[in-house]
Each structure stands twice: as structure tokens, then as C-alpha cells.
């Protein structure tokens, strides 16, 4: 395969893709109107604008190879080697890329049954995933199986509402991580689904489940105000929505503050485009999910504007001061 083949093929793919705006209302600054073509880039005074590209998957379910050509609905779709090629191309075009996953990386093909998550997580690590959250199926081999799986990942597993302190997973996951891209601070945290009824109690013994809404509000406020994040992303395995009053991404979005983006999973929902939901402050929270099995890769391009005047200088100063941390958190 040559580089040009890859790009031409990817361009073919991009022509069939949906490209849509997703932020109707954003920060307090005047509207940014230009819509660029691929690659996505800021117009106007580029020095004042920073583009952040968030790539995401969910519920890949051990789909290492594409779905088999057996006449089924998804035959020939997905595959980790394709996703790797596309991610690499996007990284070559965009300076600030985050690659995230919303859980259930495993279970669904014999790769998991035979190798216990090693293949999935090693390939995700190689692809440069920045963070992932825990789905219910990450518990399928019990807490010791999960602990072993985490060892194959070079990226953090973020989950804030499972209390593992009485289990062998204590200290092996994190509530959140902060990523820095050209001075932008992106806070990412994770929320998992209630395991009762989904996971055999034997396989999650000692795990305490914490209320996702209270957890999200507390953590998002901390990320916004104390840790001064410019964008706050929740990796959620709660599910898009339910007939019952069960907590979902839509319920979460409407009942929280400070969360800018919820990247969801669990319900295998093929959303044609991100959904905008008013949060408790009347601001926009974006919810998105890309089905399952690695059939799609989602891409959200955010544009930030550096504030002018003294604050911008202060920002530059702050960037320099915290460089050692940037090295630590990527």
C-alpha cells in the first residue's frame, strides 16, 4: 500500500461521510462562521485559534478483523488495521488529536475468549488511544481478569463512579485525566453503568457504585474551576437513552453542569450526528455515540479562540510554567 492509495481511498470515504456542525451555541464569543473542508483548519487569524480533533469509538467488542463476509448486515465493516490507517492520516493532518473510547472494548469475538483482552488493548495502545472508560463487559473475566487486561494498556482507564478501594483494582484506574494541546486543557473523566443485573455479582464483588450524576457534577466542577479545563469530556458507558427512568447520557446531560461533551456507549446507538442537550445552566452539552464493532470512527473538531490582551499573555505564561506537567499528562 502506498501513502497516496491510502489518502485517495480515505478521500473517497470522506466524500460519503456526513459532515455537520454540532455546536449551535458555544462560549460567550461571537460566532465563528467559516466551514472548512478536509483537513479541518481554523480560518482567519490562525494564531488566535486552536483546533482540537477528538476521535472516538465505543463498544468495539473485540472486533479486531472486519465483520466476516457471511451475508450479515455488517459484513466487511470495521477492523483495527483500517482504523489505525485513518487515525494515522488524521494525526498527520491535525496537530491536536485525542483518541478516546467509551468502553466494552472486549467480548464478542474469540480473540477475547482466547487471549483475555491482550490483543484488543495492545492494538489500542499501539494506535495511540489517549483514554478509555470501563464498560460492563470489561468485567466479564472478573476483577482479576480486568486487572490483567489493564496491564496491556499504555493509556489510562478513566472511571469515576466505580469505587474500587476494597478490591484488587484499587489504584489501577483513574477518575480523570487532563490533556494539554497547544495550551488548551482538556479534562476527561469516565462514568460506568450500574453493574447489578448486567454483571455476575461474583465478577464484581466489592465494587461500590456511585451515583453518576452527583459524581459528574462534582468532578466536572473541579475540572472546570480548580483544574481550569477549557473543555470537559465525559466518557460514558451509561447508554444513550431508555424507556424507563434509568440514567442515560441524555439524562446525564440535562442534569449536570460544566460537561461539554459526552462520548457514549453501551446501547450500540448509531447516532447520525451529535445531539445537543441543554444542561442545568442552559448551556449546550453534546452527546454522541458511534454504534458498535468499530463500524464507524467519530470525529469532532472543536475550535478554540485564545482570549486577547493580558489574559492571553497570562495564558502563555501559564503554559510555560506548567510545561513539566504537560510532559506528564501528554
Amino acid at each position, binding site marked *: 500500500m502506498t501513502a497516496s492509495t491510502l489518502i485517495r481511498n480515505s478521500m473517497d470515504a470522506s466524500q460519503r461521510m456526513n459532515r455537520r456542525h454540532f455546536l449551535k451555541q458555544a462560549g460567550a464569543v461571537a460566532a465563528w462562521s467559516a466551514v472548512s473542508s478536509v483537513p479541518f483548519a481554523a480560518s482567519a487569524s490562525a494564531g488566535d485559534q486552536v483546533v482540537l480533533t477528538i476521535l472516538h469509538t465505543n463498544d468495539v467488542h473485540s472486533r479486531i478483523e*472486519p465483520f466476516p463476509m457471511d451475508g450479515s448486515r455488517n459484513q466487511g465493516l470495521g477492523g483495527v*488495521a483500517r482504523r489505525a490507517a485513518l487515525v494515522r492520516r488524521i494525526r498527520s493532518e491535525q496537530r491536536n488529536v485525542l483518541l478516546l473510547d467509551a468502553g466494552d472494548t472486549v467480548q464478542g469475538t474469540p480473540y477475547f475468549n482466547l487471549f483475555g483482552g491482550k490483543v484488543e488493548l495492545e*492494538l489500542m495502545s499501539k494506535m495511540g488511544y489517549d483514554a478509555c472508560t470501563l464498560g460492563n463487559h470489561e468485567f466479564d473475566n472478573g476483577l482479576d481478569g480486568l486487572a490483567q487486561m489493564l496491564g496491556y*494498556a499504555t493509556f489510562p482507564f478513566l472511571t469515576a463512579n466505580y469505587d474500587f478501594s476494597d478490591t484488587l483494582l484499587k489504584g489501577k484506574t483513574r477518575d480523570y485525566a487532563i490533556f494539554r494541546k497547544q495550551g488548551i486543557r482538556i479534562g476527561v473523566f469516565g462514568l460506568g453503568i450500574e453493574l447489578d443485573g448486567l454483571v455476575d455479582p461474583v465478577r464484581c464483588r466489592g465494587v461500590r457504585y456511585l451515583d453518576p450524576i452527583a459524581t459528574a457534577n462534582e468532578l466536572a466542577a473541579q475540572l472546570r474551576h480548580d483544574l481550569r479545563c*477549557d473543555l470537559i469530556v465525559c466518557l460514558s458507558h451509561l447508554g444513550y437513552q431508555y424507556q424507563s427512568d434509568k440514567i442515560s447520557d441524555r439524562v446525564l446531560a440535562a442534569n449536570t453542569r460544566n460537561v461539554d461533551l459526552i462520548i457514549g456507549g453501551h446501547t450500540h446507538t448509531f447516532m447520525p450526528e451529535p445531539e445537543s442537550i441543554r444542561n442545568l445552566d442552559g448551556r449546550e452539552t453534546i452527546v454522541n455515540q458511534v454504534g458498535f464493532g468499530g463500524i464507524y470512527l467519530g470525529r469532532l*473538531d472543536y475550535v478554540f479562540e*485564545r482570549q486577547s490582551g493580558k489574559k492571553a499573555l*497570562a495564558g502563555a505564561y501559564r503554559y510555560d*510554567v506548567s510545561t513539566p506537567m504537560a510532559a506528564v499528562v501528554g
Partner: protein
Amino acid sequence: MKYFTSPRFFVLLCLTVGLANASCNRHFVLRKGGMYTRFPMDSTITDDPAFVRLYAPYKQQLDAEMNRVVGRTAVALTKPGNVPETLLGNFFADALLTEGRKLHPEAEFSFGTKGGLRTELMQGDITVGHLFELMPFENELVVLELSGASVLQLAQFAASTGGQPMAGMRLHIANGHAADIRIGGAPLDTARTYTLVTYDYLANGGDNSRGLENPVNRINLGKKVREALIDYVSGLSHDGQHINTKLDGRITTDE
């Protein structure tokens, strides 16, 4: 892991940084008009060959395991939809009971649902891959001690759904109702309890089953149904036998 640092270190650094910039709130503002793109992962995207190389050894091992022959069936194990008792259902329930008894010898009968059997097995060699296709789920064997009344409910569920895989239990379906229910050859005695082998999915209420929801006792055997199937087939093969499941009239019907 390079991303990890202690939360305390984080807070300390941020506090220090924050104090140095006490006058400023946020220095980046999110602009309106972000762009969303959904990329279909289809054959127009060429594989990254490095990734294919990375998983190739696993794929090779996996294919070898899936192609491993564990036994042989002398008859095609099918599940036609219009009959109460099928060869595939009998094979599956017999395997549950045989393997369940190895772990819990008191087990008297077994029960599954035909919807959980995802493929049929052709006459000839049975590979691990075939049994993965038959039972792709990670369901595990469960032993339930059930009251006679619960067993009656379970039998009614089986009858009302046109028959379900069972072993050690026999019944007759008359106008959609279970009659002449026998466990281990003896008529159902609602005054005593019975020991059933099934799997967690059903024991937890899956497939809208009835009769399993209030067991007197439950024991999770910690063995996957698929592993039980593999052991059952390879056990018979080891003894020089082939699978030769018969329709033995364990479920009969008027119709």
C-alpha cells in the same frame, strides 16, 4: 504508564499555577460551529499493514484453535422450528446435564432455551469454532434448587413456547399446557424440591422464562456453557463414541 501521576501532585501543580495567574479565569473560549464527521470503516480504507502484522500471530493461533476438531456427530443436529423436541435441543440439554452432574452430582434435570442456540451442527466433525457459533455467549452453568411449584411453572413455560431444550424432564403439551410432567422418570411431586442445571442468563430472568425466579437455592458453577459443550463432545470422542442424539419423545404434543 506515562499518563499517570498522583492526583495530589496534580492538585499541587495546578494550585501553584493557579496562584500565579489568580487574575485570569479561562484563556481559551470554545467557538461556535464545531464540525462532526462520521467515517465508515469500509474497504475503501486500506489496512495499516503494521497492524495486520501485529495481530497475525494471534489470528493464526485463533484460527488453529477454532479449527480444532473435538469430536464428531453421526447425525445432523438441527432445530426445526415447528416441532417441540429437536436433536440440537436434546444434544444441548444432555450436555448441560452430563457436565453439570460432574460438578454437582445431585442435579436431576437440565433446561435451556432454543433461542440461545445460535446455529445447527452438520453431520461430521465438530470443531471448537462450531461450538463458538452454537454458543457465542459467556453464559455459565448454574444449579438451582427449585420448589415443585416452580418446576411446574417452568414446564408450563416450556409448553407455552412450543417446547424447549430439556434433559431429565419429560412432558406432554396439550393445548399449549404441560401435562404428564416427569422428572427422572417419576411424576412431578409439587411437595418436594428438585435440582436443575441451567445457566446464568436464564437464572437471571433472560428469555422471559418462568419458574426460575424464586429458587430455594442457587449455586454458580463457574464453568462456561461453551466449555461444557466442548468437554461433552471431546469426552465422548475420547471414549471412542460419536454424538448420536435421538429424538426420544421427551416432549410430545397433540398437534
